[in-house]
């Protein structure tokens, strides 16, 4: 966008040097500036709105091949918080259960 703006400004300056009709050039410059400002604003808003829009998936898909039939755990429980043995579920009097 900056390069396009510079290019058009440069062309207008050259035009104004060559042409006698400075007011016409200024009118073009004024309109161009407004247009560029508008396009820049829209484009920037579009870019900024995209920042962080991609969801960060922290949980991988569970693959059936990762299940081992020899274990007592199942794939359904593997992604959940209660997938391993915890003595505190049986008896809360252990010292490690006071959390």
């Amino acid at each position: 966008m900056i390069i396009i703006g510079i290019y058009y400004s440069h062309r207008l300056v050259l035009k104004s040097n060559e042409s006698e009709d400075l007011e016409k050039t200024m009118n073009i410059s004024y309109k161009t500036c407004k247009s560029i400002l508008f396009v820049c604003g829209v484009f920037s808003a579009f870019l900024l709105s995209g920042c962080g829009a991609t969801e960060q998936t922290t949980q991988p898909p569970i693959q059936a091949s990762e299940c081992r039939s020899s274990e007592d755990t199942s794939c359904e429980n593997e992604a959940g918080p209660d997938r391993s043995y915890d003595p505190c579920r049986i008896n809360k009097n252990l010292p490690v259960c006071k959390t």
Partner: protein
Amino acid sequence: MDRQEYKLQVAEVTGTWLAAITVTIGGLFGVFQYLEHEDAVRIDRTMAFVERYHSDGLLMRSRLQITNSMTANVEYINSVLTDPNIKPSDIAKKYNDRILEIISKDALDGPLEQVFTFYEQIILCRDLELCDAMVAEQFFDADALGYVRTYYPYVCSIRAKWDYPEKYERVIDFYLPKAEPMCTN
């Protein structure tokens, strides 16, 4: 100031503001990009741990050995925890003895060392902000809490044998921050 000069000034001011806004937005965009890149690098580091955790290596074999032992002994362990004749004040000692007996019988010292050392490493990575805490929590914390609570007698045993009270302190402090002193038996 005639109309022409006024337009010229407006164009100059607009151009200046346009440049300033563009630079600012460009800078902000760069900062966002940098932060996203940092997050991506942290997630990649964490996923390297996840791959190691699930790969067919020593760690996986250790976990499998522990799981098989637990599957075979779960009723034996529960019989202590659910025994109505054992007083609440004695339960920790009885549980300690039973877990150490199983560890000795199934030769779980090596596998447990592998697993606890791995958890210690991932906690260190999180503490140093080299790994993503949320990803690590999703992949490891449920498993790790179960292992730590189940096999804490192993930690106490190692601490006593090696005269090394800080052994696995990072893991214990992380997963059991408010637990009572556990190695008193």
